[in-house]
C-alpha cells in the first residue's frame, strides 16, 4: 500500500516571550492507505502539535523549523496559506475533541457540512445540500434530511461529533486526523463513534491518524502505534507487537499504571513518579530518565536513538524491557 502521509524529522517549535517550547523534536511517521496509526501520549507530549503541523494550523509563535511532511508524495512545507486551505478539508479531514469548537453555533448543520463542498468543489447549493444529507446518513445521523436545518445546540454531544465527522469526510479526504475524537463523549457513545470511524476508514480507504491518551482505544482501533514522550517517539510497532512485547520503559510504565477492568483490583498499580520534563528547558540525554525505574549512568550520558530493532518495531531505550539482562 502506498503511503498517504510521510513525516520525516519534523521539528515544531513554539516561541514564547522568554523561551521556546520544543513541542515536536524530530518526529518521523508514515501512514499507508487504509491504515490507522495510533499516536499515544500524555498531554504536552507533542502529539497534537504533530497533527497541527501536518495541516499547518499552529498556535501563535509556532513554526515548523525542520523536516518534511509529504501528503500523497507532495511536500506540504513550502505550500502557501492559500494552497494549504485547499489541502485542509479536501485532502485532509480533521476531527477534534470538542465538537462544539469545530462547529459554528450560528450556522445550520446542513450549511456547515456543505461548506467544504461549496468552497472546494464546483457544486451548486442544491447538489451540496443533497451530498451533505448523504454524508450525514453515512455517519449514522438519524433522519439526516431533517437535521440539515438544525443548529448545533439542538444536537446531543454524540450527534454533534457525527456532524463534525460528516464535515471532515464530505470531500472524501485521503487522510483523516482524529485528535482525541471521543474524549469528550460518554463511553457508550465513544464506542459508537469509534466503530463509525473504523468502518468509514475501510469504506473510503483513508489513512487515519488517531491521537489519544487512552491505551484502550489504541488497542482496539489502531493497526500500528507510536508512543510519544516529551516531543519524541519513544516506541513504534504494530499494535499487537507493541502490547505483547513492549520494549521502551515508558510504554511499559504507562501500561502498568492504568487500571484495567479485566484485572483484579487487589494488586497495586504502578505509580510513575514525577512529571514529564519541561520542553522549554535543556533535555536530559534520555527524556524519561528522571522517572524511570531502570535508568543508569548511560541514560544520563547518552541519548538513546530510535532504532528499528525488529522489522517494524522501533524503540529508543538503553535498557529495553524483555531484552537480555534488564
Amino acid at each position, binding site marked *: 500500500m502506498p503511503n498517504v502521509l510521510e513525516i520525516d524529522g519534523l521539528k515544531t517549535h513554539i516561541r514564547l516571550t522568554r523561551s521556546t517550547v520544543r513541542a515536536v523534536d524530530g518526529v518521523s511517521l508514515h501512514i499507508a492507505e487504509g491504515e490507522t496509526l495510533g499516536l499515544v501520549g500524555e498531554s504536552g507530549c507533542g502529539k497534537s502539535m504533530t497533527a497541527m503541523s501536518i495541516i499547518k494550523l499552529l498556535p501563535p509563535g509556532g513554526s515548523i523549523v525542520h523536516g518534511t511532511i509529504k501528503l500523497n508524495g507532495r511536500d506540504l512545507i513550502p505550500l502557501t496559506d492559500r494552497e494549504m486551505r485547499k489541502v485542509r478539508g479536501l485532502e485532509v479531514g480533521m476531527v477534534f475533541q470538542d465538537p462544539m469548537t469545530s462547529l459554528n453555533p450560528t450556522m445550520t448543520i446542513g450549511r456547515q457540512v456543505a461548506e467544504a463542498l461549496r468552497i472546494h468543489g464546483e457544486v451548486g447549493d442544491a447538489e451540496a445540500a443533497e451530498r451533505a444529507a448523504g454524508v450525514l446518513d453515512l455517519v449514522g445521523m438519524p433522519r439526516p434530511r431533517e437535521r440539515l436545518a438544525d443548529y448545533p445546540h439542538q444536537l446531543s454531544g454524540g450527534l454533534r461529533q457525527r456532524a463534525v465527522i460528516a464535515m471532515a469526510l464530505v470531500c472524501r479526504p485521503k487522510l483523516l486526523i482524529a485528535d482525541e475524537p471521543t474524549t469528550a463523549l460518554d463511553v457508550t457513545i465513544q464506542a459508537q463513534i469509534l466503530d463509525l470511524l473504523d468502518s468509514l476508514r475501510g469504506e473510503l480507504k483513508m489513512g487515519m491518524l488517531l491521537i489519544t491518551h487512552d491505551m484502550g482505544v489504541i488497542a482496539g482501533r489502531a493497526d500500528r502505534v507510536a508512543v510519544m514522550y516529551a516531543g519524541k517517539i519513544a516506541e513504534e510497532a504494530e499494535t499487537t507487537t507493541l502490547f505483547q512485547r513492549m520494549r521502551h520503559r515508558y510504554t511499559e510504565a504507562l501500561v502498568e499504571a*492504568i487500571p484495567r477492568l479485566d484485572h483484579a483490583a487487589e494488586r497495586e498499580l504502578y505509580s510513575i513518579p514525577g512529571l514529564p520534563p519541561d520542553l522549554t528547558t535543556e533535555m536530559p540525554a534520555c527524556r524519561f530518565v528522571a522517572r524511570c525505574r531502570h535508568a543508569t549512568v548511560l541514560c544520563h550520558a547518552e541519548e538513546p536513538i530510535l532504532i528499528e530493532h525488529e522489522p517494524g518495531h522501533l524503540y529508543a531505550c538503553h535498557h529495553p524491557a524483555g531484552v537480555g539482562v534488564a
Partner: protein
Amino acid sequence: MTQAQADATMTNGTDATLPFLDVRNLVKEFPVTRGAVLQRRVGSVHAVSGVSFQVMPGETFGLVGESGCGKTTTGRMIVALERPTSGAILIDGDNIVAMSPRQTRRRRRDAQMMFQDPYASLDPRMRVLTILREPMAIQRMGTRREQYARALELLNDVGLSRNALERYPHEFSGGQRQRIGLARALAVNPRLVVADEPVSALDVSIRSQILNLMNRLQQKYGLTYVIISHDLSVVKYMSDRIGVMYLGKLVEIGSGEELYSNPAHPYTEALVSAIPIPDPEVERHKAYRTPLGELPSAVHPPSGCRFRTRCPRAQPVCVESEPLLRSFGPKHVAACHFPLRPPREETVA
C-alpha cells in the same frame, strides 16, 4: 498530638456493623423555568429519582454512570452542597437532610468533598496554607499554631514538601493540585470523603499516583469513600462495591468483579462492553453491546424502566411498570424485568 487529631480519635468510635452512610430514597428535581422575569416553572429535571444505598465504615463505594445519570448530584447531596427534594441521608445515624443549617455546618466536618477539576477548585489568590487552613477556621478547629501544624502534617500526608505552604495553586501541576485538594478535604478530619472524578482531569501517568495515595490515606485514617466517576476501570480499582446509575436511578449494585464478569442488568453489560481494554487480543475478540441510540431527556424520563428505550431486551411490561431491585447474590442487586441471569429469590432487596 494536635487538637484536630484529638478530635479525630474521639469521634472515630463508629459502630462497624452499622452503615456509616445510609442514603434512602433520595430524590432531586431541578426546576425548569421559562421567561426572564416571571420564571414560570414549566417542568423539572429529574436528576436523582429514588436512590438508596448504604456504605459501611471504611468501605469504598463507587458510583458510575454516564453524564447526566445523577451521580454528581447524589455526591453533592451527601456533602450537603445540594438539598434533596425528598429522601434521607444518614451519616453515622443522623439524618442530615432534617438538620438546621447550623447543625449541617457542624456535620460538614464528617463528610468532605474532593473535586474533579484541580484548576477550578482551588482559589488562585490563596496560598496553600490559607487553602488548608480555611476549612479548619470555619469549623473553629484548634489555634492558629495548631492549624499550621496540621497543615504541615497534611502536606506530608499527600507527599508535598513544606515549602508548598507559601506558594499559590498556579505554581503546581495538575497532579500536585489534586494532592492539595485531597489535603484540603482531609483538613477537618472527615470520616467520609466524596471524591467526584478525582483523576479525570489528570494525565494517565499521574492518575495512579493519586489513586494509590487515596488508598494509603484511607488506610491511615480509616476513611469511608464514595468515589464518583464515569470511568468504570478507575472505580473498580478503588471500590469494594459499585452502584451503576442510569438516568437518575441505581440500576445495579455489586462488587466490581461481579459487575464485570456477571452483570445482571443489560445497561451494566453494555457499559462494561463499551470500555476499551488496553490489550489488542481482548479488544479484537470483544462483542460490543453498545446501547442503541442516545440518552433520553431527564425532563421527560421514559415510563416504567428508564433504560427501556435503549434496551435490546425491552418488552411491553418495561413500559408499564418500574423494575425493583432484586437480589442476584450476596451484595449484588439489580433492577430489571428481564435480567441477564435469574435472580436469587423473589424478594425485594
